[in-house]
């Protein structure tokens, strides 16, 4: 129905208007999306560098990067469901491919991820860390993360209109995942027998990979095997999400 090039414009305009609605009537506006992970970082940094001390090199960068990446995952997955709900009145009246809503909601989060990464690099420079050319591999990890997160969002959104509980359940899972992933603590404090379990989570692999590529030390997660594992996970989740979304989104107009 729509022409293909207009899909891109439609996705953008849904993202932009959603953005306007979200930060309407708030003075700091968009800065909140930047401030939230930073405040969280500040709190956790205070606790885990003053009260508790880990033996991690460059802990500040280690923690900040972990929080930023996890925050991206939690934001896209949770917001996509909220956006779907808030666009119910449109979905009921006009036909357009429903996945556009999911992509649109990921765009705002992608923007805040990029801004957060800029903040990270400011910290990075002041910490006196050295940037290596191999650091550009970061973008490979970010691309993997994006596919993974989009797959999750599609799966969640396809179930959401029929089972509203998904939103609450997923909120708990995100909380759980935050502590089950080495974000604030180094993996070295976890008994070795649990490592396999922790790295079943592809997000944990991506986060570790990003750290190793930027701040090191270690190179366990830079291997091709690691990329293959992540990509297999992310791609199959994405395909599963797409198929399910395609099937279930047909009745969105009735269920929302």
């Amino acid at each position, binding site marked *: *129905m729509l*022409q293909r090039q207009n899909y891109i*414009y439609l996705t953008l305009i849904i993202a932009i*208007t959603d953005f306007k*609605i979200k930060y309407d009537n708030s003075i700091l506006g968009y800065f909140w999306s930047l401030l939230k992970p930073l405040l969280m970082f500040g709190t956790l940094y205070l606790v885990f560098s003053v009260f508790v001390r880990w033996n991690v090199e460059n802990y500040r960068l280690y923690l900040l990067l972990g929080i930023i990446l996890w925050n991206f995952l939690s934001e896209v997955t949770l917001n996509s469901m909220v956006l779907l709900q808030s666009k119910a*009145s449109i979905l*009921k*009246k006009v036909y357009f491919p429903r996945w556009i809503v999911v992509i649109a909601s990921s765009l705002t989060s992608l923007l805040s991820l990029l801004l957060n990464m800029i903040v990270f690099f400011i910290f990075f420079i002041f910490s006196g860390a050295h940037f290596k050319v191999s650091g550009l591999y970061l973008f490979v990890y970010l691309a993997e993360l994006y596919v993974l997160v989009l797959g999750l969002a599609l799966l969640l959104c396809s179930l959401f209109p029929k089972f509203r509980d998904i939103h609450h359940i997923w909120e708990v899972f995100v909380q759980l995942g935050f502590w089950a992933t080495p974000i604030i603590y180094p993996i070295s404090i976890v008994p070795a027998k649990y490592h396999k379990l922790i790295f079943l989570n592809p997000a944990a692999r991506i986060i570790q990979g990003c750290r190793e590529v930027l701040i090191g030390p270690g190179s366990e997660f830079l291997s091709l095997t690691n990329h293959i594992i992540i990509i297999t996970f992310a791609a199959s989740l994405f395909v599963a999400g797409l198929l399910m979304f395609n099937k279930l989104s047909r009745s969105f107009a009735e269920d929302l």
Partner: protein
Amino acid sequence: MIILEQVSKMFRLPHDKKWTLRQRFVGILQKKTYEDFYALRDINLKVNQGEFLGIIGKNGSGKSTLLKLIAKVLEPTSGKITVNGNVSPFLELGIGFQGDLTVRDNIFLYGALLGLSRDEIRNRYDWIIDFSGLERFVDAKLKNLSSGMQVRLGFSITVSVESPILLVDEVLAVGDIDFQHKCYDCFESFKKNGRTIVFVSHDLNAVEKFCDRVVLLEEGKAITEGCPLDVLTLYKSQEK
């Protein structure tokens, strides 16, 4: 051209809607508490290009469901719908505007939803504002506009898309007399340009005046179709 073959739409009417998993699990133990409700049953309909088709019927007879099926918002339970050409739906009040956005933003959002590119919307922008008569309100939030103004805006955007097929669902009643005249003028020019219109209305005078053919729906079935005068006479005779 729109072709509907043996189209049915069934809704499950729950006696107690289950929204959560818990309710669903509890529900497994209980007897099924819904009934099948056919909003439309075995509809065969062909709308030719350039035709102005009216659909009339009482509340709940399936008129809006029929339009939503043609607009692809709903999927038919059974049967097949073929639509050739772009469809611009104009369904119900509000048509999915975002109350927290300004009139200007809503024009761009809704235009994009109807398949326009940014440049296409820009080209139509002045016309839309002019036709809806909302010059003073472009920066006002939509929720602060009266319902009549919202309908005017919705109609103006939908018309400006110039898609070959237009679906209009009982909305013009909200606009004032002046705007209604403008709309009817619009319809006249559509007819001249050979655009297809499916028109749902309770305004029987308008139906009689504009429609080439009228379908009467009753409880989800198309009971007659034919020239406006005959169908309207039958419809009116049922009232007593």
